[in-house]
């Protein structure tokens, strides 16, 4: 029983993290229908920026964390402005290929500066965040993931539901032409969605870095794991991304724990295929509202 609970908790926290990384991906897709293949590299950018600030610049943790988030936000904004805006109005496939190019570029830059070795953050999470009860052990980083993740979800949930800018962003995702006709700054909305996506990605990059260590290749590979998560949850549902992430996380840890660790990367995809057979739009994909 303890083993089960332990796996459950691990699965949920890892999955939550997947969900968070997928959230940024969904946001870009929702507003501009672009599949961002550079998402894993955005994660890595966040993780390495934090690393640089903590180890090289010797900043305390909290300012370093905040500066990283701000830096990622700016990075997303700049990327959209420099690379994506000139392609507005071009066929989507060009834009998607561009993100593939961006991925290589970011990866190259990171390899150039930090090399391909495994780096680690100094241990900074306070130990009271860890929970030890009998055989069950929850490391501090999982608790921190849950807290940070829930905070992000709440903040963005409120932002999209109530703030004017959030409503404009949803309106662009909904009907771009109508939004344009009402004077919504569609380009600003695109830029903002990239900025927010990069911010969330950077945050998940840091947490992933704490768990697995920081390595360019590993982190950008997580970007690929985003795909089953978002396809499962529905490409255009932010809540679906979180749930999809948790499902994938649970499947991974349970197959790893009960069946065989070598199967843990495969089983989620098998389940994914079966779910998609039943629900082709993913679990929470937008159902087209049709007036009959």
């Amino acid at each position: 029983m303890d083993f089960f609970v332990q796996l459950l908790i691990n699965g949920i926290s890892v999955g939550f993290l997947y969900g968070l990384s997928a959230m940024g991906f969904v946001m870009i897709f929702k507003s501009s229908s672009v599949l961002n293949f550079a998402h894993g590299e955005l994660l890595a950018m966040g993780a390495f920026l934090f690393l640089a600030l903590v180890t090289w610049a010797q900043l305390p943790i909290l300012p370093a964390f905040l500066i990283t988030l701000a830096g990622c936000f700016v990075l997303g904004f700049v990327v959209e402005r420099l690379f994506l805006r000139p392609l507005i109005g071009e066929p989507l496939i060009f834009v998607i290929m561009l993100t593939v190019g961006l991925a290589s570029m970011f990866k190259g830059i990171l390899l150039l500066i930090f090399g391909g070795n495994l780096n680690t953050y100094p241990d900074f999470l306070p130990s009271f965040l860890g929970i030890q009860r009998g055989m069950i052990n929850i490391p501090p980083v999982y608790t921190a993931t849950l807290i940070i993740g829930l905070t992000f979800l709440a903040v963005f949930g409120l932002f999209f539901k109530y703030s004017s800018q959030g409503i404009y962003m949803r309106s662009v995702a909904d009907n771009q032409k109508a939004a344009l006709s009402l004077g919504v700054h569609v380009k600003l909305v695109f830029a903002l969605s990239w900025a927010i996506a990069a911010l969330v990605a950077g945050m998940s990059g840091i947490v992933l870095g704490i768990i697995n260590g920081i390595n360019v290749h590993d982190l950008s590979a997580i970007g690929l794991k985003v795909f089953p998560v978002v396809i499962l949850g529905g490409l255009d549902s932010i809540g679906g991304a979180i749930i999809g992430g948790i499902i994938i996380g649970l499947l991974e840890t349970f197959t790893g724990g009960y069946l065989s660790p070598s199967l843990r990367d495969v089983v989620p995809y098998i389940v994914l295929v079966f779910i998609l057979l039943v629900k082709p739009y993913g679990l929470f994909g937008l159902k087209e509202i049709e007036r009959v």
Partner: protein
Amino acid sequence: MENNILLQINNISVVYSDVIQVLKGVSLAVEKNHIVSLLGSNGAGKTTTLKAVSGLLKPENGKVTDGSIIYKGRNIQNQYPEFITRQGIIHVLEGRQPFKYLTVEENLKVGTATRWLKPHKDDLEMVYHYFPALVKRRKALAGYCSGGELQMIVMGRALMAHPELLLLDEPSLGLAPLVVKEIFEIIVKINEEQATTIILVEQNAGMALQIAHYGYVMENGKIVMEGSAADLVKNPDIKEFYLGVGVAGDLRSYRDVKSYRRRKRWL
């Protein structure tokens, strides 16, 4: 008199994708506080004219290649819609185009995008005053509203921006006659109470000419006739082709209409 002109379109040509010419020299003038209706059959270029004014040609790869559009003494052809909407021109698109996954009230709130200070409450109240039917639907998703309600949403949304010039593209499309009547009454009310100038594109020529001050008739990308609404209603050609009443008030067979059509006065 000259100072009363809010919008002046001088001989514009519009070309899509650098090859397809849709407008071939359209000129029209819109006086302040007037309702001007733009009539014509499908494909005449009415919607394109509106899009040329509102800047929405751009995302469709269309361009004003010739002539000028002057609004309040300023050239606005080929400007971005973000700029044009902030000058006070709001285009209500054909086919209603609501934000389906936003609630009615959120739809209305998007309408304030052009303004910095946003007293949502007063504006919402103003819109609900014109469209009381929306009040009890405010929390519903727009995607589940009826056609009449959708038309009210998109017009209300445009009103939230306090437009000086409102471009209405076929507000009566696919609505029941009674609802059309209601919508048109509201258009008149908006025009009178908010002092909003309106360009109304319509297939329903009878209704449109009843409420308009002035009218233009378009065909094949050109203006073929213009005049005050009262004159246009009396014009035998308009009666024949747009109002569906024969010269003597009798029904004609389709063949007669066709043979008559070749002798249209303005071609």
